[in-house]
């Protein structure tokens, strides 16, 4: 599975890891990863350590997650980007919308 989810130790954090290419082909899987989540989830971590590539439709999917998680009040952290992925997030200035570590 290119997308895996697990619950953080605090029980309130959903960690979504994406392996390989994060593009339109992962659209449904990415939505499934958070849409069936339970009410206890308050924080989201998108772990991109295994992500090799990210395109503009993935940026759109991140925005959908942000919307789902409460828009401006969403608490989402994007972690462990490689240089190429980080570059795309930077060009789009997504650090204004997400905590990127």
């Amino acid at each position, binding site marked *: 599975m290119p997308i895996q989810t697990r619950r953080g130790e605090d029980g309130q954090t959903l960690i979504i890891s994406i392996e390989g290419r994060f593009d339109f082909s992962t659209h449904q899987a990415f939505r499934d990863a958070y849409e069936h989540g339970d009410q206890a989830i308050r924080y989201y971590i998108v772990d991109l350590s295994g992500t090799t590539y990210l395109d503009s439709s993935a940026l*759109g999917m991140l*925005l*959908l997650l942000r*919307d789902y998680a409460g828009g401006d009040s969403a608490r989402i952290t994007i972690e462990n980007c490689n240089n190429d992925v980080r570059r795309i997030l930077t*060009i*789009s*200035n997504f650090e204004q*919308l997400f905590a990127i570590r």
Partner: protein
Amino acid sequence: MEESVAENRPLRILIADDSDSDRLILKTLLKRLGHRVFDAANGLEAVALFRDTTPDIVLLDALMPRMDGMEAARQIKSLAGERMVPLIFLTSLSEASALARCLEAGGDDFLSKPYNRVIIEAKINAFNRMRLMHQTLSDQRDIIRERNRQLLEEQEVAKRVFDNVAHTGCLDAANIRYHASPLSIFNGDVLFASPRPAGGMLIFIGDFTGHGLPAAIGAMPVAEIFYGMASKGFNGADVLREINQKLKRILPTGMFCCGAMIEADFKLNQLQIWNGGLPDGWLIRSTGEPEILPSRHLPLGIRSPEQFDAEMDTIGAVPGDRLLMMTDGVLESGNAAGEVFGEAGILRALESSESAQHPFDAVIDGVQRFTGSQGDADDLTLCSLEMVDEAGFSVLPDRVPPSALAGPTEWRCIYEVRERTLGDFSPLPLLLHICMEVPGLRRKSGEIYTLLAELYNNALEHGVLELPSEWKHTSDGFDRYYEERRRRLGRIEGHFIRFSLHHSMKPSGGRLRVICEDSGPGFDFHNHPVLVSGDKPRVAARYAGRGLLLLKRLSESVTFHHQGNHVEIVYDWHFPGAVSEREAAVQS
């Protein structure tokens, strides 16, 4: 269901055998299985019968007089063309090479004599299934081909509609070069350029997420907003705010538009740039030195209007400086080895180009060399803008007024902008709009805008904000000027700028009087060099010579009142045919 019905329906079978008895046996056997049979006694007859009866399956004896089975098979296959007609050889041959020759001639299988009823039935059924499958595949292929043709045709028409909206601007101006594939709109790319009423240009280059129809639909309102607002004199930041608000409202979450707005002012020799999500822009100085203009904003359609930041970066740029902007298709151009062109590719192309080569050509050549294909740069949009000398540069055609009689002719209006509104609102589009209601003024929109803009900017920057214009004469001062302008705009208190417009008719045309007053301390206009004599102007505290000269040249008269914070200009227009003294002087 259709297939099973088709599978059971009687087949039309052509048989050819020179032995009358063998032929009769086979014919009887096939008829008993429920098929319709056409029979021939040699190859020549078989080919003729095939042409007349278009059978579903052909059974051919290999050895026949006049034309043997091999030659008949070749001709039948060629007559069948794309249609699949299973062709089975009837043979008593058992030698491997003879059997192989039958297949080479186009046969699909053999049946050996003497005939076995069960095997014949099984083979005919098997080949019929194959034939039907082939038929289904080619039908589907034809449907797909037809749908695709329709889709392309629709895109062509849609593109023509879009072109009528999008290409009303000045993309063909001499100082703009661009590459956009003919159907790039369906890749989500847009490129617009419009002259500004006050001179200069506005350019927007954008890239919607996604492809096809959704991206193209998003592009339409952007084009309308861009051209509508640009022609009314709104600045880049205003247009960006409007586009962002519109896209935020109409696009689903997850869809947005990366874009860049470029506002070029050839009078002030400056560029204003806003880059939200596009790759780095490049400003190549006339000296060859490159400067990078990175994306500093979120793409359009993400932020709510209150959170959207439309502030543009101001950069001094002189004639000969060239700006390059591109969509990410340029960076993502791939070669056969699966590598992408990338920013490194741009840098290589710019560095390795000869000094005489236009950076636009350098990048296009670079992409084509990299991808190894000629003119195949399909999914990318690249645009370059060259700074030019304002004198002798005009992109705005003179429009003919529809009628000199319709519209308001005798009117007066006073519009006052106060306090903080001075910092975040420009009254110019509104004032221009009011003046443009007069048909006689409409074809003079450029001049009117310039007059209003000169008056307003002088009143704001030198009157209200008390910024010394001589700062703008050095590049350090230029930065300082705009820094200070921003700072002082933020804390305006107790100030106003008031426009009084008065239009009336005269026998030969009309007269517009514009009075611009501000709450600033004014200036010593009695000793201003431009006002005292017609000599070449020196720098003055409030009106730099150029602005004032421009006002004098465009209008009948410029008069200062009070302590210099009250300016009145008179502008006359004339019915077609009647030429004013001022115009006559300009034309001669």
